């Protein structure tokens, strides 16, 4: 798990100002992933298509959680937007293990 985090690159030093800040904490699993999808849908409906999502407080993440992030990434991208993630070790490990980390823009700079 540690190795996964160590290989996670900081791809962007500072989140651009135009990004909408959001957070999701607790378990991001089959039981909760639908909630995150709903938040993405609402954001798209409002026109908030450039989002930085703080996942520092996520305590568990499974395939459904990863899929929800992919859903959000695709939904925002389809509207010409952008999704940037602020990942903790749990999230970084899940993205790496699922092979989806190349699909995301990761920011691990200072707090939001």
């Amino acid at each position, binding site marked *: 798990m540690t190795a996964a985090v160590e290989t996670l690159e900081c791809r962007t030093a500072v989140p651009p100002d135009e990004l*909408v*800040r*959001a*957070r*999701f*904490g*607790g*378990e*991001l*699993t*089959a*039981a*909760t*992933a*639908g*909630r*995150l*999808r*709903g*938040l993405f*849908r*609402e*954001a*798209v409906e*409002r026109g*908030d298509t450039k*989002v930085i*999502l703080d996942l520092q*407080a996520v*305590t*568990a*993440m*499974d*395939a*459904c*959680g*990863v*899929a929800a992030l*992919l*859903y959000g*990434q*695709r*939904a925002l*991208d*389809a509207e010409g937007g952008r999704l940037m993630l602020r990942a903790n070790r*749990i999230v970084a*490990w*899940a*993205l790496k*293990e*699922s*092979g*989806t980390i*190349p*699909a995301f823009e990761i920011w691990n700079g200072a707090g939001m």
Partner: protein
Amino acid sequence: MSLGEGTPVKAPVEGGLSAERKGVVIAQGRRVHLRTMVPGDLHYLSEWVEDPFLERMVGSEFLHAYKHVYDKSPTFYEAVLTDPTQVCLVIEANRGWGRPVGVVRLFNIHLLEGYCFLETILTDQRAMRRGYGVEAGRLIAFYGVDVLGLRRIEAKVYEYNVLSMNSLRRNGFVQEGVLRKAGFDGRHYWDVFVFGILRDEIEAQRAKDKISFPFEGYRGNVGGSA
């Protein structure tokens, strides 16, 4: 914050999973529903891993791992719940059963490529004859397409497990090949049949049954998958 908050941040316990976890119904069919695992399900797993019939018919790596890798440790629950390459759901009969009838899971999930493998473990032979496994497989296939964005699901069956092969065929799976003598039960080598189904074939099955995903409350996956 315009996007809004996610779930409230709870104090992590027992390695990070919340103590309030309860099974959440993910998919609802006519005969069965699928819910998330809860720690108490390990009690049932402990029984199922000792069933020689299940071992012979399914040869599940999932059950094998619980018994032999985790030595029936409670940590198996957390490992399953935090595995980003699988979705494991418990099969509950809608009526007439006081306990779970099995487990269905999608594993080796490749989200970017859009494919995975299916395993259905039905633990009660009475349930097998009532089509519970067929419906459980159908529900999780719909879930895989709608929620995970999958475009292909694969399954493997021992050549002597005719019931499972029939279940897959009833759900629209197509036999794609045979892995000759790829299975070993300790005494004999057996062929393993490979089945697969594509997204449009799953969609064709959807019209045949009335199901719902009460928790997701929506259908479709913006952007699609690979």
